[in-house]
């Protein structure tokens, strides 16, 4: 129980780009700017997947990115949470049906929350994270 309490108060996120157009990634970084300041909730962007609790996944998965994504997920220490950021990660967006697209994220990894939008606003991402925390 206390473990879960600590996890809720300090979520370290890892930013996984799998063939996105970089728009969602910029918006993810927006969350960390002084205006939104996610550090006041204990959310930090980490550089290494070994330190992370949450994967922020963006982009429809390309064939080339698929094996890397699986490996990154396997390298993550449990408990693991995946949040799909953006229309592409949720449902492939405008790339649906493309020859080099494997599919949306929930086809490959167990996704806990979806944040749609192209790109989603930082407020929407914070809302998604809050919903994940409440569902734990």
């Amino acid at each position, binding site marked *: 129980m*206390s*473990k879960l309490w*600590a*996890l809720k*108060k*300090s979520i370290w996120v890892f930013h996984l780009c799998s063939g996105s157009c970089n728009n969602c990634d910029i918006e993810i970084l927006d969350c960390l700017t*002084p205006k939104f*300041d996610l*550090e*006041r*909730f*204990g959310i930090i962007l*980490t*550089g*290494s997947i*070994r*330190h992370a*609790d949450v994967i922020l996944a963006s982009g429809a998965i390309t064939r080339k990115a698929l094996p890397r994504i699986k490996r990154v997920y396997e*390298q993550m*220490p*449990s*408990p693991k949470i995946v949040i799909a950021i953006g229309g592409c990660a949720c449902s492939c967006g405008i790339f649906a049906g493309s020859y080099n697209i494997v599919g949306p994220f929930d086809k490959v990894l167990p996704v806990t929350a979806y944040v749609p939008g192209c790109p989603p606003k930082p407020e929407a991402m914070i809302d998604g994270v809050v919903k994940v925390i409440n569902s734990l």
Partner: protein
Amino acid sequence: MLANIFYFIVFPGFLFTAVIGLLASWVDRKVTARIQWRVGPPWYQNFVDFFKLLGKETIVPKAAKKTGFLLAPLIGLIGVTLVSLILWRMNLEPNISFMGDVIVLIYLCMLPSLAIIIGGSASGNPLAALGASREMKLVLADELPFIIAIFTPLVRIASIRIGSIVLYQQANGMMLTHHLSSFIAFIVAFLCMQAKLTLAPFDIPEAEQEIMAGPFIEYSGPPLAIFKLTRSMMLFTMPVFLITMFLGGLRFEGWSILWSIVKYLLILVLIILVKNTNPRLRIDQSLRFFWLRLFPLALIGFVLALLGL
């Protein structure tokens, strides 16, 4: 015997240093946030981070050497605990100081860096190896001026015991304001401390934007928690070392408690300001800075101390 165990585990040793160190790290994060016009995390954030990491899974990579990988964090933790223990015991009871304890302290201050080097090399990850090699170069760079700077006030009072420097400062006022040599040595030691804490501009080993987390890249769960704790404890212990040597030591009688806390907070905020207003140096730049700029400066201070200034 029991008293010694108590000293090691509870009061000046592990628990005390850990709690104050985590609070100091919070001050670091909060002041950083305020400098960047953010709100910053609540005061218990570092405790929560620590307990969360304890609850995570520990992964030992296939390419890693298991014993070295898992033992390295403990080496660092024991080193910093011993430094804190010796410093506080000497500050509270200067008379128990023994001959050459400064040398012991300088050696023990090395242990956390050594732990990072061992852990990084044992990780079996190219980025961790790169971080370990950078840490090695940084230690080589900062150790030389640091030792000379620490020895300057000792040469001035012609004694190699921490107890005698604490007593001397209690009788004659702090070294920093009374001796030119100690003033120069303090500046050198402060900059070396920044490198020992691996904070910007000398956060080269774990440069987040280029080699992710450097030596810590493969660490997860409890070992990572211990490394983070060690860093927080260093953030408390190294300023206390400097305060003991240059700023009159720490005392716990009446109003001097407040004065001790103010001294520590001043040094801490100075560290944070330097950290937040400087870009990261390259490893060759920092080597040049320590050996060609700070080393002559430290030597000047040393010679002045020999001349009795």
